[in-house]
C-alpha cells in the first residue's frame, strides 16, 4: 500500500463526495455560470454562489461577493500584488520564508518598476517577530505580505499581530494561506487581513484548478484579467462590482463544484478537529524522528508551532537520493528539493540541496507515520 505524505503539494486522496459532485456537474448541469437565464445556467450560477458562501464561511468573511475564484493561489497572489499598482520607490515588507508565488512577482516588480523590498530575516526555525516588521515601516511602505505557514518547515507566523501593525499604519496586508487553509482556523477580521490568497486543492480538499482571493470591503485592485463577465455586456469597460470585476472568462466550473463538496466535507469534519488530528500526527512524527540517529530535523519541531509540514535530511545522503529510495523501495511519496522556496531554504541553511519534506493530511494515520520512520531507519542502516 502506498503512503502519501505530500499533502503540502496537493492533498490526496480527495473525499468521494468531491468526485461525485464533479461528475454530477458535468453530467447533469454542464452549462456555463453567469451567462444565460435557462434552468441549467441558473443552476450552475447557483452552484458557484453556494461555493462562494461556503468559502466565505471558512475564512470568516461577511460578504461572499468578496471571494474571487481564480486558477490557483499563485494567480490569487499575482492578482493582489500586481493589482496594487506599485510604482518606483514604493516599499514592500515580506519575510525570508516566502514561496516563489510571492517572491517572483515581487522580484519582477523590483526589477521592472523599481519597488524596494524589505525582507525580514526569519530565524533558522522560520520564525519572525511581528515587531521586526513594525521597525521596517516607512511612509513609502505600500504592502506587507507574509505566509500564514511555511511550505518548507510548516512554521506558523504571527499573522494577527502583523495584521494589527499593518492596520494601525493603514498598509495593505496580504496573507498567503496556501498551506494553512483548511488545516488551521482562519478569520480575516480577527487577523486584520485585507487580502487573503489560498488554494482549493490543499487543505480544503478540492480538485486542482481553483484558487481563491478574498478582497476586503472597500479595497480595490486593478484586475489582472479583463474580459467578458456575463454582466454589463453592453459596456466595453470592466464592471466595478465584485466578484465579476476579477472573474473575466469562464470559470473552472467542475472544479468549483468539487470544491463546494470538499468545503462542505471540511466544515462537517470541523477545522478544529482536522487541526487536532494533523497536530497529533505531527507531534508523533517529530518524536519518532528525534529518536533516529543521523537525521537532521528543521523548523520549529513542535506540533503547536507548525502545520503538518516537517523538513528533514539524512546525513550522508542527498534529499533526492532519499526520496528516490522512499518511493522505489517503500512506496512512500514525499517531496524533495527546494519546494519553490529558495529564500526559505537559505533561511534554514539547506540551500541549494534542499530537504526531504514530509507533509501530513487529514487522511494520514499513525500507521503512516510509523511506516515512514521505519523506512528511514532501514535506509540509514
Amino acid at each position: 500500500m502506498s503512503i502519501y505524505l505530500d499533502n503540502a503539494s496537493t492533498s490526496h486522496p480527495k473525499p468521494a463526495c468531491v468526485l461525485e459532485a464533479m461528475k454530477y456537474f458535468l453530467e447533469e448541469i454542464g452549462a456555463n455560470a453567469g451567462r444565460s437565464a435557462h434552468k441549467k445556467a441558473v443552476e450552475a450560477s447557483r452552484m458557484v454562489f453556494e461555493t462562494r458562501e461556503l468559502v466565505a464561511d471558512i475564512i470568516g468573511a461577511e460578504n461572499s461577493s468578496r471571494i474571487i475564484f481564480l486558477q490557483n493561489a499563485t494567480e490569487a497572489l499575482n492578482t493582489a500584488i500586481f493589482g496594487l499598482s506599485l510604482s518606483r520607490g514604493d516599499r514592500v515588507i515580506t519575510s525570508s520564508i516566502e514561496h516563489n508565488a510571492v517572491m517572483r512577482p515581487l522580484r519582477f516588480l523590483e526589477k521592472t518598476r523599481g519597488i524596494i523590498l524589505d525582507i525580514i530575516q526569519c530565524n533558522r526555525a522560520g520564525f519572525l517577530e511581528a515587531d521586526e516588521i513594525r521597525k521596517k515601516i516607512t511612509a513609502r511602505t505600500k504592502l506587507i505580505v507574509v505566509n500564514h505557514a511555511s511550505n518548507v518547515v510548516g512554521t506558523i507566523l504571527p499573522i494577527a499581530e502583523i495584521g494589527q501593525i499593518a492596520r494601525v499604519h493603514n498598509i495593505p496586508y496580504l496573507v498567503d494561506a496556501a498551506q494553512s487553509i483548511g488545516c488551521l482556523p482562519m478569520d480575516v477580521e480577527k487577523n486584520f487581513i485585507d487580502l487573503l490568497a489560498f488554494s482549493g486543492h490543499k487543505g480544503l480538499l478540492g480538485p486542482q484548478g481553483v484558487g481563491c482571493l478574498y478582497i476586503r470591503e472597500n479595497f480595490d485592485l486593478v484586475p489582472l484579467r479583463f474580459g467578458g463577465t456575463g454582466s454589463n455586456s453592453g459596456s466595453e469597460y470592466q464592471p466595478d462590482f465584485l466578484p465579476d470585476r476579477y472573474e473575466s472568462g469562464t470559470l473552472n466550473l467542475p472544479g468549483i463544484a468539487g470544491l463546494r463538496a470538499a468545503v462542505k466535507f471540511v466544515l462537517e469534519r470541523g477545522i478544529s478537529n482536522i487541526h487536532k488530528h494533523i497536530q497529533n500526527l505531527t507531534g508523533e512524527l517529530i518524536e519518532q524522528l528525534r529518536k533516529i540517529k543521523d537525521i537532521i530535523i528543521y523548523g520549529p519541531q513542535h506540533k503547536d508551532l507548525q502545520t503538518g509540514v516537517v523538513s528533514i535530511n539524512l546525513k550522508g545522503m542527498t534529499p533526492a537520493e532519499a526520496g528516490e529510495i522512499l518511493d522505489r523501495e517503500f512506496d512512500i511519496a514525499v517531496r524533495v528539493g527546494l519546494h519553490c522556496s529558495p529564500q526559505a531554504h537559505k533561511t534554514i541553511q539547506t540551500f541549494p540541496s534542499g530537504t526531504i519534506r514530509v507533509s501530513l493530511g487529514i487522511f494520514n494515520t499513525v500507521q503512516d507515520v510509523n511506516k515512514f520512520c521505519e523506512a528511514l531507519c532501514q535506509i540509514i542502516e
Partner: protein
Amino acid sequence: MSDYRIIIFDSIHEVLRADKFFQNDGLKVKIIPPPRQLSADCGIALKVEEDFDVIADTLRKNALNPAGVFLKVGDRYVSEIKKLSFQGGING
C-alpha cells in the same frame, strides 16, 4: 394573477443572494429572464409576488442594493426604486 414585482441587480451574485434571503423570509420568489421592456445587465432577474413593504424589508435587512424594482401594472412596469430610501449597497 396577483401583482408582482421585478427586481434587478447588477450581478448574478446579488440576484442569488437576494433569492436566498427572500426564500429564507418565506416570500414567493422566482428567478426569471428579465422581461424585454426592462434591461438587466446580468441577464437574470427576480420575480417576487409580494407587497412592496415586505420586499423592502428583506432588502433593507440584508443590505441588498437593487438596480431596479418594478411593479407590473397592466402591460407596463412602474419603477419603485425611489421608494427604497436607504443607502449602503454592498456592490463594492
